[in-house]
């Protein structure tokens, strides 16, 4: 067992982990931040996407020990300081970008990573960026619409 420390959503977090402890388990089981979902646990679905040192990673495919000393951001840290939904989250609500909501934390974290690098993506760029995020409910169109809206662009997309 080793001790790890990292910053999670701006607060310092410390815990004891095994070599094999996944970052997703550390977040969910030790820190009780259960907003990060585990859908497949095989690196396919993207429900577990968080940011580590500013970039999107699948937390089910990274060891907690690898994140020692890192800055981690999860869905729990996305809302505005007053607790209201941030622009991306609000756009998902406004444009019906979720149904069951299981994929949503990963979708929002991937969208946040995309818009940080590319504030005005095209619809095609949004779809390509979401290749590693699987949604079994929405059929994706409303997710793409939400992300286009969050980037301040027209939400009328070709697929409608």
């Amino acid at each position: 067992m080793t001790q790890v420390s990292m910053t999670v959503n701006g607060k310092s977090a410390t815990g004891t982990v095994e070599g094999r402890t996944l970052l997703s388990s550390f977040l969910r089981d030790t820190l009780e931040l259960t907003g990060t979902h585990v859908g497949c646990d095989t690196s396919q679905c993207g429900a577990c996407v968080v940011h580590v040192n500013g970039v999107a990673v699948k937390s089910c495919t990274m060891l907690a020990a690898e994140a020692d000393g890192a800055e981690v951001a999860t869905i729990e840290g996305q809302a505005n300081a007053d607790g209201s939904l941030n622009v991306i989250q609000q756009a998902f609500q406004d444009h019906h970008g979720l149904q069951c909501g299981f994929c949503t934390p990963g979708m929002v974290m991937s969208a946040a990573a995309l818009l940080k690098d590319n504030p005005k993506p095209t619809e095609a760029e949004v779809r390509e960026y979401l290749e590693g995020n699987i949604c079994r409910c929405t059929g994706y169109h409303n997710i793409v619409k939400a992300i286009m809206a969050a980037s301040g662009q027209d939400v009328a997309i070709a697929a409608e």
Partner: protein
Amino acid sequence: MYNFEFVKPATLADAVAALSGEDAQALGGGQTLIPTLKQRLNQPGTLVSLLSIPEMVGVCKTDDGALSVGGATTHATVSAEAAVDFPGLAGLASHIGDPAVRNRGTIGGSLANNDPAACYPAAALGTGATIVTNAREIAADDYFQGMFATALEEGEVITEVRFPVPEVSNYQKFVQPASRFALVGVFVAKYADGVRVAVTGASEEGVFRWSEAEAALSAIFSVDALAGLSVPADGMIGDLHGTPAYRAHLVAVMTRRAVAAAA
């Protein structure tokens, strides 16, 4: 996963020392190894992370004009940092898996694993790259030895991959939609002294050079030069995603597309 110890050395020398221990294994981005460990297909005693070794990370030009990529450089970094000097390589890296995979997965991990459907083997073989390890330099033509098989010895670490930069190059991948690996991928690179063509995803022998296409393209670098050329279906992979004949057909199609995109 079975449990293991995790160590994160800061120098190559410490990593090599740690890897000489019993049951120690290198950990790159973990994008292949962690899923393998979850299936209990492997039981290392110690995982030695290579991602905190500064001398193994980054992209730079060498004095003789080659592009050197550190063995622990992520796909995302290659796609950003090779874009100007070697756009064919950057383009390949920018289409591996998805963004989260590219933020972790490394070139050394990909080449060490040598998945028959992986992208980087096509670039390494298609450029005649040099695989540099802690112990020696291995020419790409000698490095790839069949599906998941390479010239690497136990505990040997890929520290750098040195690519001779082509005049023009392109990689075309026909994506297997579930895995996002290559159903067939072709890397074409044109040099002053000839053209190299490497094919991944297709053969039961792993990545290979298509010498007939190389000869035709070395004479005239155009899509027309490929007219009538095909690879035999014999020895191609057949699975639920495609028959050997389908893969053989795709090899010719992807090669034409790569030449059209590069020319």
